[in-house]
């Protein structure tokens, strides 16, 4: 049985002899992407000309399909098939797991006449060209018996109950602690529905080779996608070869597959030719998941010196009628600040809206938007600097479970961030700084995100040319997986990066958990390190056992790997020469990694601080972010360029959450208002000014053998709150209903007589 303590021993990644670990090397697949030659799922060239499927979304939110008329669509030029629930090939009932160890059950498409949300795929048209398919899709006539959509979240708040299997977590006596605190805050925040808006909408291409389905799709986790498709098709899991080589953004929205994959596979089987199905940008908004809206009540009770005595964050949120997903906006707070009396929990209500699901920093992204602003308000009440208030509430051990922190550099993030940003120039009284027509304010917030290690496997091979190939059923959703796996391989085998090949995104490769929850690099990388160490051993034994090798007869444990050369002291040869001679078919080694049981003895988190300067136009209520700094402590960094890119991307997401991102529901129809990127506004390059992410030196040897942690979610956590706090500092208006759009801020400015 392995133990966390095993990780203290040095390994090639922690020794980092050639300095590749941490280096900001360019993306492995970068040239393919920037030249438009990386084949994303929809662009893979199938073995024969594909047919094109276009889905039709329901025009009601709840009810049933009463009548179907596909005659006109069927007769349209080039049409090969028109499917609705009436004639779609049979699929096992939802959730079926014919194989008990499947990681996902069946997800039948067009499964019945029941409509549970607006935009639910209810028909498929397949034609010889995409143009013919989309033209015919407009000719599918569906009539509905529509129910009244139950989509008004705020009206249904009183009906929200405990999420299944969950309880509130209370430590001490919150009510008593709150009642006896000399300084208290009790405010409510709301956050809207957000859509992932990945650059690449979900898309799939499938064909059959005999009884085997070859399916290319865009998904964050390979195994559940493979298993789910096999269960849906009612075939053996090995009869699905699922590939997802290049993925244009996931953000949690591609943690599962959708009807594009199911329908492409079904149609390819029915038509005997490859079929492509993709969501349009508009269809993505309703046809896939979203981050649900929340209402969060935060109560803080503090001593006059700022120490928290009572602390509570309660979250109300919603999910799909058939779902259980809960946006756990209260959870992150459990490890953040010390307070003897604590109450956190969630309430969930089911609505006739599309599926709620995880989106970048699920929980933290929503929850920090309330708590980290509440801390700002409390600091003002206390006359304390917001940085100092947080430092005064720094816990010595995890405040909920008493476990020691594996590493916790939150205070250093706060202090160094404050210094680098020039936080001392902030005037605590709002509305004091003007630059032309802009009121200027500074704000900050803390960031936290949990860290995870999931089981993974990996294989490494070396061929007669000395080329190292990493093979793993892992994904790269734009985060840099290809690149960091190549770095780990090169450093472990002591070879230049240029001789490392990485093959991922394939269900027939050793399984890895995929990309999500910022567990990807740690989980996949730990297995890669293990595979690399096993290949080292195999190579060392090959060399020392080969009479023709200069290393012959040496101790395999003493073989060194550097610059493509294997050596024992001054006896050496190149890795390529050794393999060419002694193992001309190459060598392969597998490795795996899983969390040791004693990992749970530590509280392992990633931390950060955000500092933001905004301008507020007091005439219009417009807000512009002028500069932003994030300082993060997230273990050893594998690649400072791809890590920074993830962190700044998260920070930009926070800017969107604070200022523009949010989708309103039309309660009459149960549909979302923003259906494209001109209505649903995400920040773009031109909206972001000076932006910097600093990564502190850190090694967390309780996290995994490499001492790394994830950064994919961390940058988002707290970023929006820093923007909101800066807005308050600029103009003295608190808007607790996100996003902080000009109409809301203007109302506050007018109310203050500004």
């Amino acid at each position, binding site marked *: 049985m392995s133990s966390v303590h095993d990780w203290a021993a040095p390994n090639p990644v922690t020794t980092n002899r050639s300095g590749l670990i941490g280096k900001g090397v360019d993306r492995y697949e970068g040239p393919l992407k920037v030249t438009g030659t990386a084949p994303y799922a929809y662009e893979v060239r199938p073995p024969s000309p594909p047919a094109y499927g276009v889905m039709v979304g329901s*025009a009601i939110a709840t009810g049933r399909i009463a009548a179907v008329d596909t005659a006109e669509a069927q007769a349209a*030029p080039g049409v090969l098939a028109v499917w609705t629930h009436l004639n779609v090939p049979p699929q096992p009932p939802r959730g079926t797991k014919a194989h008990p160890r499947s990681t996902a059950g069946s997800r039948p498409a067009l499964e019945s006449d029941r409509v549970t949300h607006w935009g639910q795929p209810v028909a498929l048209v397949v034609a010889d060209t995409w*143009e013919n398919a*989309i*033209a015919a899709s*407009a000719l599918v006539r569906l009539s509905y018996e529509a129910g009244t959509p139950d989509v008004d979240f705020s009206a249904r708040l009183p009906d929200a109950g405990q999420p299944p299997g969950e309880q509130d977590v209370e430590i001490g006596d919150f009510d008593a602690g709150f009642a006896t605190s000399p300084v208290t805050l009790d405010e409510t925040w709301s956050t809207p529905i957000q859509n992932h808006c990945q650059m690449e909408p979900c898309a799939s291409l499938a064909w059959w080779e005999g009884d085997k389905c070859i399916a290319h799709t865009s998904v964050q986790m390979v195994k559940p996608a493979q298993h789910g498709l096999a269960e849906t098709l009612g075939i053996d899991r090995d009869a699905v070869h699922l590939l997802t080589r290049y993925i244009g953004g996931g953000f949690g929205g591609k943690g599962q597959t959708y009807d594009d994959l199911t329908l492409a596979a079904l149609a390819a089987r029915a038509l005997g030719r490859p079929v492509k199905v993709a969501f349009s940008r*508009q269809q993505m908004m309703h046809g896939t998941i979203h981050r649900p809206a929340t209402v969060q009540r935060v109560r803080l009770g503090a001593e006059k010196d700022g120490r928290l005595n009572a602390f509570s964050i309660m979250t109300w949120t919603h999910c799909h009628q058939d779902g259980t997903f809960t946006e756990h906006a209260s959870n992150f707070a459990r490890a953040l600040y010390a307070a003897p009396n604590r109450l956190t929990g969630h309430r969930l209500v089911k609505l006739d809206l599309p599926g709620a699901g995880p989106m970048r920093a699920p929980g933290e992204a929503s929850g920090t938007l309330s708590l980290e602003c509440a801390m700002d308000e409390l600091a003002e009440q206390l006359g304390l600097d917001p940085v100092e208030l947080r430092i005064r509430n720094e816990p010595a051990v995890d405040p909920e479970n008493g476990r020691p922190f594996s590493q916790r550099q939150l205070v250093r993030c706060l202090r160094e961030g404050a210094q680098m940003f020039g936080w001392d120039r902030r005037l605590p009284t709002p509305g004091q700084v003007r630059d032309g*027509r802009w009121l200027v304010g500074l704000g900050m917030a803390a960031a936290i995100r949990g860290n995870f290690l999931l089981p993974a496997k990996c294989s490494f091979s070396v061929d007669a040319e000395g080329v190292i190939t990493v093979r793993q059923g892992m994904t790269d959703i734009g985060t840099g997986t290809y690149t960091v796996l190549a770095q780990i391989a090169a450093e472990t085998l002591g070879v230049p990066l240029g001789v490392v090949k990485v093959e991922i995104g394939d269900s027939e490769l050793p399984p890895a958990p995929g990309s999500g929850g910022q567990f990807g690099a740690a989980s996949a990388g730990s297995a890669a390190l293990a595979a690399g160490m096993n290949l080292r051993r195999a190579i060392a034994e090959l060399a020392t056992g080969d009479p023709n090798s200069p290393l012959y007869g040496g101790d395999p444990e003493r073989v060194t790997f550097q610059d493509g050369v294997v050596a024992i002291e001054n006896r050496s040869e190149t890795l390529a020469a050794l393999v060419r001679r002694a193992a001309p078919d190459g060598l392969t080694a597998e490795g795996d990694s899983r969390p040791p049981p004693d990992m749970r003895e530590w509280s392992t988190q990633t931390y950060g601080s955000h500092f933001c300067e905004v301008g507020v*136009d007091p*005439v*219009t*209520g*417009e807000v*512009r972010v002028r500069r932003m700094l994030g300082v993060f402590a997230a273990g050893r960094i594998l690649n400072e360029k791809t890590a920074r890119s993830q962190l700044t991307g998260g920070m930009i997401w926070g800017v969107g959450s604070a*200022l*523009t991102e949010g989708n*309103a*529901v*039309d*309660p*009459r*129809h149960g*549909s979302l*208002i*923003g*259906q*494209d990127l*001109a*209505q649903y*506004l995400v*920040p*773009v*390059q*031109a*909206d972001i000014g000076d932006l910097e992410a600093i990564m502190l030196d850190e090694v967390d040897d309780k996290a995994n053998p490499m001492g790394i942690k994830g950064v994919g979610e961390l940058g988002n956590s707290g970023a929006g709150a820093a923007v909101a706090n800066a807005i308050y500092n600029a103009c003295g208006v608190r808007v607790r209903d996100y996003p902080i*759009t*000009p*109409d809301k801020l*203007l*109302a506050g400015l*007018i109310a203050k007589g500004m």
Partner: protein
Amino acid sequence: MRPFTYERATDLGQAVREASQTPGARFLAGGTNLLDLMKLEIERPQHLIDVSRLPLAGVEDADGGLRIGAMATNSQVAGDRRVREHYPVLTQAIVSGASGQLRNKATTGGNLLQRTRCPYFYDTTKPCNKRTPGAGCAALEGVSRETAILGASTACIAVHPSDMAVALVALGADVETQTPAGDTRRFPLMELHRLPGETPHIETHLIPGELITAVVLPPPPPGGQIYRKARDRASYATAHASIAIAGGQVALGGLAHKPWRAVTAEAALAAGASPTEAMTAELADASVGELNAFKVPLTTRLFAAAVQEISGEAA
């Protein structure tokens, strides 16, 4: 998207004749709006007449003003030295709209004829009198801040999205057209667009097949010029409200089915009213709902700030 035919026009007279005679014909210029709408089947032309290669892209001096060819791109006009020097309100308005890539493709004529960004116009599952006359208006009781507060009807509360057109109205520009009969028409740009009334699908006073060939700017008016726009996102977003001031002339954007010439405010200001009083008078008849009510104080404040900024520059 429906099948359609396409031709590239090489002759202006022939283009307008064909446009008037071919059922379902539409002109195609930059395509930045029409093609998007075709993909969503909001626009369903049967025939496209591509006028982008017609020799209408010049910007020429004309009678102390400028004659801007209808095919001049937004980027070209905004960057023209004469425009920047003498009509800065126009440059400011253009660069506050869309994005660099779109402005490189979008034309002067096309910008004027772009269609509303009302979300209910874009969602083809909802009733919209612009898409289907008589179907009703989902936006009336809908969830949108971006609806009209001036000149709306019970058939339509959509707003015209152009920034450029607001500046052109303030500048007192004319449009020049070619009619299917082969005549050249010239009339004030502020008379180009219609209020929705009962026929919001008819958005301009152009006759079928008539093509805008130029926008003619009069000599620059005496006095300052400014364009101010309030919006959610700096990079690319339509206006909650915008204001163009050119000398004594004022136009408003984001508030109505057309660029709104604020004649009441102009007169009040000329008579000595404060900018706030003048704009309050202009908006006295504004019809607002819960979500777009903020446009009244927003426009009033934006106007006062704009006037102050111009006066500051003058002083």
